[in-house]
């Protein structure tokens, strides 16, 4: 992908009145993206979070393959046993002797998968909807955004719960249900960006050259939205993971034998007085993941839009 050709000038952080005058010539060669990347690398919290997430991903994918236990294996010799090296249950076991470490990693697969897929669903719906509304403008825009406003005011969590109750608890439905209610913010942001982009000169130029609507949206507007969408995706993933774990915690999410961090936290909360490790480990994995995603998203936002990053 050729990101060098973005016709956007980098925004300068202007704390003092002089920088703007002189920085122009220094920065001209660098593109917005290279610039943003350098700023992101300077953000220690974001970099550390990125490294932790990479390790987490590796553990979740590889871990269950190399660990000595199967997720659904019940070790009747060691039920509710605390973390120990001797029993090879490093995070301990639950009431029926299942290994918490393996279950946590397997639950992580589901949680992260839901996070990614449901975000993708909301991304596709939101970007399409927002770009169309913003690009066509006028009546189309007004009607489409009025719909968003109305849906926005609904207690969306209750609808997800209703959907789960009505259509039963399967994982595909979780993707769709969460994605389908999460696209509103994305649509709003994309629409706003499209509106402001559409009147810029290079779009005018493309239109003057007779490029048709679909090509303009696909080739010019969508690539330019990439920055803001990337930031938003990073911030949506933890939200979605949170919603899934929320549902699973209520018993409305993924069902046995499948598990997710939310379901594990729910299990753990039942036995927390006798076996607190069953609560603490999945809870820690879940929290660390959400924490890291939030920091990465924050860092990306600051890097791409240094204005509020004084």
């Amino acid at each position: 992908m050729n990101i060098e050709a973005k016709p956007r000038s980098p925004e300068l952080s202007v704390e003092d009145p002089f920088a703007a005058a002189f920085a122009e010539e220094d920065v001209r060669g660098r593109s917005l993206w290279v610039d943003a990347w350098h700023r992101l690398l300077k953000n220690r919290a974001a970099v550390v979070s990125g490294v932790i997430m990479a390790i987490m991903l590796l553990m979740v994918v590889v871990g269950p393959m190399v660990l000595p236990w199967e997720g659904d294996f019940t070790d009747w010799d060691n039920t509710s046993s605390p973390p120990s090296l001797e029993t090879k249950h490093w995070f301990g076991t639950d009431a029926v002797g299942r290994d918490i470490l393996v279950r946590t990693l397997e639950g992580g697969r589901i949680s992260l998968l839901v996070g990614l897929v449901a975000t993708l669903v909301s991304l596709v719906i939101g970007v399409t909807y927002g770009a169309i509304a913003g690009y066509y403008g006028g009546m189309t825009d007004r009607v489409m955004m009025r719909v968003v406003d109305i849906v926005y005011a609904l207690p969306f969590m209750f609808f997800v719960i209703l959907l789960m109750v009505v259509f039963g608890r399967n994982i595909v439905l979780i993707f769709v249900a969460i994605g389908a209610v999460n696209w509103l913010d994305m649509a709003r942001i994309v629409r706003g960006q499209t509106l402001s982009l559409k009147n810029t000169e290079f779009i005018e130029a493309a239109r003057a050259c007779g490029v048709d609507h679909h090509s303009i949206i696909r080739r010019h507007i969508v690539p330019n939205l990439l920055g803001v969408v990337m930031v938003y995706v990073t911030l949506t993933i933890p939200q979605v993971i949170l919603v899934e774990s929320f549902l699973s915690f209520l018993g409305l999410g993924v069902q046995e034998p499948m598990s997710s961090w939310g379901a594990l936290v729910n299990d753990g909360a039942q036995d927390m007085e006798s076996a607190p490790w069953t609560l603490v480990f999945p809870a820690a994995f879940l929290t660390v993941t959400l924490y890291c995603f939030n920091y990465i998203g924050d860092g990306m936002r600051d890097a791409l839009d240094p204005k509020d990053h004084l």
Partner: protein
Amino acid sequence: MALLEVKNLEVSFETPDGVVQAVNGMSFTLDQGETLAIVGESGAGKSQMVLAFMGLLAENGSVRGEALFHGNDLLKMKPRGLNGIRGKQIAMIFQDPMTSLNPFLTIEKQMAEVVMHHQGLRREEAKAHAVEMLRAVRIPDPEERIKQYPHEYSGGMRQRVMIAIGLLCEPELLIADEPSTALDVTVQAQITELVSELRKQTRMSLMLITHDLAAVAEVADRIIVMYAGEAVETGGVDDIFYRPQHPYTRGLLASVPRLDRASDDELQAIPGNPPNLQELPEGCRFRDRCTEAMEQCRKRPPLWVSDDGRSSRCFLPMEGGRTLQNATEPEHDE
């Protein structure tokens, strides 16, 4: 004793791309009742110099030197001491009247708080005083308009309000930082006129900061010309206009339309741009744009001073002046 004496003031900013030296060794005095104009292109450091001794620099700015007000160094004062002077003895009017008033408070609140805080007036007295002051800056129907919010005022009217706020405590020094730049041309003249008229009525000193040399011709007693963070020439208003010494001052004058010049004289803009304040050139800062640049301009030019308070920093000799040997550090012995 001078009302304000600034000695060797330095202002720099810490930015992600390095240190920016905004003001470099500025020294000057301002007497009671005097009008001093500080002239220079935008970015010359005029505003930052004033903000520095008013304690209003951005967090990434730092200041060195002295700024003696009635002999007390403003730069060494505690916040409490400085607050006793700001708004009471030294008032300030800013460049952009559209954003300089708080949009969430009525004009009444923003005016009354000044006298209530500094003079201990009660709300009713403060309001009456504020109404009088609005009348003085010729805001029609002040009793009604004082109840309004800033967004209900035009730009020129807001600047009048800013002036009224500045004058509430009858300050000894009014600093006007480009008070008319952001306004329409017709309103500009009114504001400048109003400021100088109000100054004449009181015994107040005025420091006028502007990029427009022509605008201060009738108002100022003395002029300091600033370039790239330092004073290149200082002198009385007639000296500057009729006997300019520094090539930069001459360049500025050549770019100003004047009635006393033949109409077929061409107006000349100074070519080029001011230097990057992060990488200031060795020697004369105006060198690259100067029509009279010489080989020796690569070295630091000397400061010429005369007994009548003129000065110029250039290798070209100043008429009636002598050079100070240590040109980088102007002398401060009394």
